[in-house]
């Protein structure tokens, strides 16, 4: 009698009458030794929970690079020699009233300068501001050169002193660099060391960022006239880590929402707490395992606990549902738990594995953070098999459920007259007319979606650091810098490589000029800097600054002199063989980056034959973005191909029916199309963060189809017409589908509030996909089934 999962198991209220040797080997192993299993789980929770507390938060930047792309390979191979890409912070001290050139305001600048000077990890010799001794002016005179520090040794804050400083600033040519063009602010440029010299440990960006915030607060608090603006890679990472802590707080919100939903569904306090706790145990195990395996939580993988929690709760709810119904019918809680395990373990494993397919497909993308996401999420799903498919039934076998809610769950199915209006609405779509209407609307939606999605961009579209929101403090500071200083934060670096001592070769430098000229013709290129540009400027400088000398004239001695000055300034490595050509861009839109990459490719096609000098992509934030865009664009299509391939295969195995596969997959495709259209409307481009969304959306979305369609197909096989079959399905798993959709959405919707922009984007898109897939499964799928799946008359007669 226990051979068929469809057949109803007998109601046994007396434990004595239960056959302990019934069920599968696994069931007997687990339930006949449930005390041992509980003890093992408790021990594991202690050990892994402890490990979980040790997991580190990191906002690594290299992990987001597409490691197999040639640009990144080139960068990794030459990174030690590449100079001038330094890890700098830029701090700007600004006043709103008057100019920075008052005794008081200059003192403000000097104090901030000194405070920063003492932060561990700052390369103190390399710091540059009006108040550092390396900021000097120099003019050509009849006798040669004359110069001195911009702030003279006898500076006393008097008007005469300040006038001299202003004159020196003009002579030093640092307007727009160290002093804003509107004279309302001054900059401090702070190169950072890789290691904290006091401790010898790697520089902790989080701590550094905190110290900078302290300085910002200390010097601007209570003085609305003053502001301090800070940009630089280290600050960005610091802000991202702060963002990660904020996201962790959202986890609590997600737990509360899920708990409330589950309670609303079960009305059973005891079992709600139990399911939520077991799922939290899963999260703890997962984090513990990750910590033991040496993984860190980054801004991407921190989302996995949310997903695991949401998936866990929805599967837990199903187990609970089964137990509730059995107990309601009068079965003993131990036996009810066993029955549920017997009925649903295999289905649960299949569903979790199908989620796993969505994650596993992510492994094909050669970007470390996404692969890490795939691994961590897969571990999470494996853990769920233990905690939610085994632990939950066992715990339920001890605790049972509240009596009233058990009775409520096992109420007989209502008749068609008194059924819920929502059910009545959904059942409409099993009739030809409404089904055709639903399909027509879907076709129109798909048409509009495809039309809108043609404008889907690749890459990040907002100004400033794309990781953070456009209105974040950091991005406001970036905007301030761009407005007032001649700086751009979007830098594409071409790696220029020659033989040792080859950087002085005139033909090589001429080629660099040619490439530079081509790049300058491009829309979105604001400036190009590099050894060749500086060489031309120095050649003019050492010829009394007469402008007509500003060219790479063919005098090797002059070139040698110019380059030797530039080696000390780190424009080129000491071996005179590697230097970056820095392209400052107006934005980091994909089209802008593509123009740069295309120009580099064309240039290499024209002149690559000359092998004494090599121009390679790429480094710099924009260089990496260009590489990422190329990889992401390719991966976006590949991913769809693989994820749909996997889903179709899975459906084929489950349904063994082509119409069934079509019914299951078409609604998912509509969601994928609409998701792309939504991205266009919301101004999101395809990027590292949106890739997992599509895979997760489809991989988890197919769950609904599995639950709903399996039951419909089974009922139809029993000879029911579609409407009846669907009605039965809605009562059996349909309610759970709705619950799953809402729980999953609740898990991810909180991300929309994340200070980290791409997490917010992921949250919005995933919420959309989970909810829309739910509607697809409940409306479009029966509508399609209405036309595609014919009830089998022979089955009806059987």
């Amino acid at each position: 009698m226990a051979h068929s999962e469809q057949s109803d198991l007998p109601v046994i209220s007396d434990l004595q009458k239960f056959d302990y040797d019934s069920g599968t080997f696994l069931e007997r192993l687990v339930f006949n030794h449930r005390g041992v299993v509980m003890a093992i789980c408790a021990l594991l929770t202690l050990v892994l929970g402890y490990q979980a507390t040790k997991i580190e938060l990191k906002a690594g930047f290299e992990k987001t690079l597409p490691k197999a792309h040639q640009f990144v390979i080139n960068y990794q191979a030459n990174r030690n020699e590449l100079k001038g890409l330094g890890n700098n912070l830029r701090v700007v001290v600004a006043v709103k009233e008057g100019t920075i050139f008052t005794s008081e305001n200059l003192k403000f600048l000097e104090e901030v300068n000194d405070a920063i000077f003492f932060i561990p990890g700052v390369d103190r010799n390399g710091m540059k501001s009006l108040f550092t001794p390396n900021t000097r002016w120099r003019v050509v005179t009849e006798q040669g050169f004359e110069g001195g520090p911009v702030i003279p040794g006898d500076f006393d804050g008097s008007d005469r002193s300040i006038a001299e400083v202003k004159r020196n600033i003009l002579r030093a040519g640092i307007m727009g660099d160290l002093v804003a063009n509107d004279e309302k602010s001054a900059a401090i440029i702070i190169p950072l060391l890789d290691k904290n010299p006091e401790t010898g440990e790697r520089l902790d960006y989080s701590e550094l960022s905190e110290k900078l915030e302290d300085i910002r607060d200390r010097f601007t608090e209570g003085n609305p006239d003053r502001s301090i603006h800070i940009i630089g890679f280290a600050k960005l990472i610091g802000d991202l880590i702060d963002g990660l802590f904020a996201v962790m707080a959202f986890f609590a919100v997600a737990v509360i929402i899920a708990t409330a939903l589950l309670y609303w569904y079960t009305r059973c306090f005891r079992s709600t707490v139990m399911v939520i706790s077991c799922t939290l145990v899963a999260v703890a195990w997962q984090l513990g395992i990750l910590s033991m395996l040496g993984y860190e939580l980054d801004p991407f993988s921190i989302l996995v606990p949310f997903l695991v929690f949401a998936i866990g709760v929805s599967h837990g709810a199903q187990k609970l549902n089964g137990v509730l119904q059995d107990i309601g019918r009068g079965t003993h809680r131990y036996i009810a738990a066993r029955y549920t395990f017997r009925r649903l373990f295999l289905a649960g494993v299949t569903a979790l594995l199908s989620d796993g397919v969505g994650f596993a497909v992510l492994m094909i993308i050669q970007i470390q953070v996404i692969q890490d996401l795939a691994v961590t999420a897969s571990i999470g799903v494996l853990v769920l098999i233990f905690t939610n498919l085994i632990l939950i039934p066992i715990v339920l076998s001890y605790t049972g459920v509240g009596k009233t809610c058990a009775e409520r769950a096992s109420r007989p199915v209502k008749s068609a007259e008194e059924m819920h209006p929502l059910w009545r609405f959904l059942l409409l779509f099993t009739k030809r007319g409404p089904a055709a209407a639903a399909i027509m609307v879907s076709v129109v939606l798909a048409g509009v979606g495809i039309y809108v999605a043609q404008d889907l961009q690749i890459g990040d579209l907002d100004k400033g650091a794309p990781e953070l929101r456009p209105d974040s403090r950091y991005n406001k500071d970036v905007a301030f810098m761009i407005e007032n200083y001649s700086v751009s934060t979007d830098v594409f670096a071409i790696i220029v490589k020659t033989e040792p001592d080859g950087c002085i070769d005139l033909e090589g430098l001429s080629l660099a000029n040619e490439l530079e000229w081509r790049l300058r013709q491009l829309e979105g290129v604001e400036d190009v800097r590099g050894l060749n540009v500086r060489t031309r400027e120095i050649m003019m400088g050492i010829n009394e600054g007469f402008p007509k000398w500003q060219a790479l004239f063919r005098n090797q001695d002059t070139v040698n002199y110019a380059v030797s000055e530039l080696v000390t300034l780190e424009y080129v490595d000491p071996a005179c063989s590697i230097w970056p050509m820095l392209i400052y861009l107006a934005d980091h839109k994909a089209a802008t980056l593509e123009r740069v990459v295309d120009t580099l490719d064309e240039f290499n096609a024209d002149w690559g034959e000359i092998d004494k000098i090599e121009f390679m992509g790429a480094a710099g934030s924009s260089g990496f973005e260009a590489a990422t865009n190329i990889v992401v664009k390719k991966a976006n299509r590949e991913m769809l191909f693989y994820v749909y391939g996997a889903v179709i295969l899975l459906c084929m195995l489950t349904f063994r029916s082509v119409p069934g596969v079509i019914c299951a997959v078409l609604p998912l495709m509509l969601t994928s199309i609409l998701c792309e259209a939504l991205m266009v409307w919301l101004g999101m481009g395809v990027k590292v963060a949106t890739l997992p969304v599509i895979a997760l959306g489809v991989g988890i979305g197919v769950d609904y189809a599995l639950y709903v369609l399996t039951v419909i197909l089974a009922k139809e096989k029993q000879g029911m017409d579609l409407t009846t079959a669907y009605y039965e399905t809605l009562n059996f798993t349909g309610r759970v589908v709705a619950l799953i959709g809402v729980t999953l959405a609740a898990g991810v919707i909180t991300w929309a509030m994340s200070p980290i922009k791409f997490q917010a984007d992921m949250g919005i898109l995933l919420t959309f996909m989970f909810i829309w897939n739910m509607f697809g499964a409940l409306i479009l799928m029966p509508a399609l089934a209405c036309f595609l799946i014919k009830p089998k008359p022979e089955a009806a007669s059987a």
Partner: protein
Amino acid sequence: MGIRRSLVALCVSLLLAPWASVSAQKSYDVLELPAVPSELAAKSLVFAIHKYHDRYFAVGHHGHILYSEDGENWNQAEVPVRSSLLDIHFPTPELGWAVGHEGVILHSADGGQTWVKQYDGLRYGEEGLAFYRKMAEENPDNEDFPFLVEEMEFAISQGADKPLFKVHFHDGEFGHVFGAYGMILKTEDGGQNWQHVLHTTENHSFYHLFDFAHLSGDARFFLSGEAGLFLIGDARSETAVQVESVPWEGSFFTSAAARDGAVVLGGLRGRMFRTEDEGENWEEVQKPPTSSIVDSAVLDDGRLVFAGIAGELLVSSDAGRSFNFLPISGGGRIYTVSQGPVGSLLVGGPAGIKKLQLPQ
């Protein structure tokens, strides 16, 4: 049949083309590569702007030559080199010459639309060596010629490293070019032949010759250069004589001849000097302090405008005795200044050409 044969030849040559390119080592040489049309030419580095015969001309880096009727819309000329071009002159509406780095001399016979290369710095040493060897043989008593032979041997070893800063044609056939290390050449046949005239130029230290000024209708011209060098040339006698009385040793980057015959020189660190009597007497020009003065222009109304490299514009209404700031800014570095269309100035520099309205 003829067509078929040429087709076969074409096919063969196409087949062989890859081999040909392998055997000929590819090299990048700005003297051999034509300038490329650029939408942004008027917005990129410009070294000189001039007005000739109601047309405006600008020269810049990467072989840019631009011409315009209104000083706002610029056309880019077809130029056979990618050298940085430093000066341009049109003695007639059709005939023009441009000079620049690598000692390049370009010529146009169609008002500036298309250009051919007449000369480059690689010829300078070779031709100079042959010429001065011959002169040394013919004039064994002259001590200058063996010295110039040595100088030309050195020039050959250096290659085309010397820029020509300035070109001036006295008519459609007779012209001079001037440049670095005292480089000076003349032509009497519209540039078909360029002759060395170092030996008739009193510049024994081979100082750079930066600028040229003259009064129209006068055969005399003035050359200003490095380290206080100031020469008065005579187009007829074909000599240039150094004025020794210059009260300063700094470089004169630019010079302008006022209508009253006075010459105003500007240069390093913003110093400016003026002489009314060809160097007998000098006065330092009254002016506010500025950065180095790098270019000048005589406006249509006779006023003089001098430009400081940091972007200062100075104007004089009294033939250069005193200068004041123009109340307009070039908005960035200025390398060159010129009369623009009615009531305006054209300035050029690293950010290209800008038209500035002159205050009345």
